């Protein structure tokens, strides 16, 4: 099944504040693409544009899925989710006063995902044992790491084809970050997902990424065709590795 996300030349702004300028990236079937950049450089805005939460002022966002092209700039967030795109939002955005299981079941709200609920729920519980143990607990009462697992599991409940993960490492301890990133990789292989991940933790992101983009002040400043490519780049060295002259 062919899937391809193509973002070409988008600008986006919050009022007078420009957040994205001429951003073009693509994500192809089965890839894990990292969107690298420190805070406030437009990673989340780009994710929100894909989900229809923020509307770009110019440019195109096209999703080719099952041989049909969809113009995501014209669809509502709900319609984009219905196409099989799921996002693990920054800050997790769980429903704190619903139980773990209720959060997961809401993840399967889109009608196409409902026939697979039993299968997906079993898979989530198998992958995240702690969620099974705490299925009746309120989501808001769990630790940050557990909440992150729930947020990822909830996104998977919609049987997505394309998974967007916004800053999975925020607020987690180094060990948990490492575990979460490994988990995303495993889930990706298991579900045959295509993943676009925004992350500022360069070392963790490149563990699972096939390739990546570096975004600075709302512009893509470097496109790395491979992890080696990214590591060799001066800008990356400058921003992340501290090894540039």
């Amino acid at each position, binding site marked *: 099944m062919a899937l391809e996300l193509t973002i070409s030349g988008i600008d986006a702004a919050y009022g007078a504040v420009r957040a994205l300028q001429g951003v073009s990236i693509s994500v192809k079937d089965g890839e894990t693409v990292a969107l690298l950049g420190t805070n406030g450089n437009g990673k989340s805005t780009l994710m929100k544009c894909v989900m229809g939460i923020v509307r770009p002022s110019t440019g195109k966002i096209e999703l080719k899925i099952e041989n049909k092209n969809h113009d995501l700039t014209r669809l509502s967030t709900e319609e984009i*989710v219905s196409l099989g795109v799921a996002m693990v939002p920054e800050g997790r955005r769980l429903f704190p006063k619903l139980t773990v299981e209720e959060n997961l079941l*809401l993840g399967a709200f889109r009608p196409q995902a409902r026939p697979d609920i039993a299968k997906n729920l079993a898979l989530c519980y198998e992958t995240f044992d702690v969620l099974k143990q705490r299925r009746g607990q*309120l989501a808001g009462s769990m630790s940050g790491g557990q909440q992150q697992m729930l947020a990822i599991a909830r996104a998977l409940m919609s049987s997505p084809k394309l998974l967007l993960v916004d800053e999975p490492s925020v607020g987690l301890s180094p060990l948990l970050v490492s575990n979460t990133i490994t988990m995303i990789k495993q889930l990706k292989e298991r579900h045959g997902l295509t993943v676009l991940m925004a992350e500022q933790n360069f070392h963790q992101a490149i563990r699972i990424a096939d390739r990546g983009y570096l975004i600075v002040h709302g512009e893509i400043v470097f496109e790395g065709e491979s992890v080696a490519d990214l590591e060799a780049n001066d800008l990356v060295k400058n921003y992340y590795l501290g090894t540039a002259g």
Partner: protein
Amino acid sequence: MPQVAHPAFLVMGAYATYVLAGYGVDPLLAGLLLMPVFFVFGLGVYQFYYSTFEGRGSDQGLRGIAFFFGVAFIVQVGLILVFGVDQQLVDASYIGTSVEFGEMRIPKRMLVAFGVALALTSALALYFSRTFTGRAIRAVAQDEGALRLMGADPVRIKRWAFGIATATCALAGALLIIVGPVDPNVDRLYIGRTFCVVVLGGLGSMSGTLVAGLILGIAESVVLTTAGTAWAPAVAFGILLVVLGVRPAGLFGR
């Protein structure tokens, strides 16, 4: 935001039951028959509210409440114009008779109202926990943006929730007029009681609401018989103040 026209819809349910009862329909059956009508009416009211206030972002602060106060006044005045200010009541086999348990005599109308209210509350609790839409209704109050990411349209969910809330006013209104005579101004009593029950029970807790309703009912009866009828309206506000001071999350608030 509190829907302050809810008690007015409740009284409207009572009057609608009264009208149907005039054609010989059993009041309970009338309440049930009116539920779908009220449901559609609720959808319409929310849609109107959404297009005129919420959708334009002018529902902030007191303006949204002002809208529903306005709706409540229109309902109230409408009822007065059509039915007058006098009390109205209905008749049925279970009104005016009672069951004896040893020393106690319990009016059947009270038992009927209690049983139906319990059944309605249980049905709603099941709906909110077992169905996709029910869970989405609870979620929409917590995070609309996140609900969108689940593929649900928050406006549709809220409209549906409003429809259900209004539909319950039909049956609850029938119970109200079964329990005692109703006049167009009785909704004022219920605004205080509604706030009291919701706050005491804890926002969003169905079981809490049920228990809080029982507590308020018993407290009002005790005060009514010991201190006199003049003190009855003070009970709800008294409990409300104490709960807000001592345990703002309510009995079952989490």
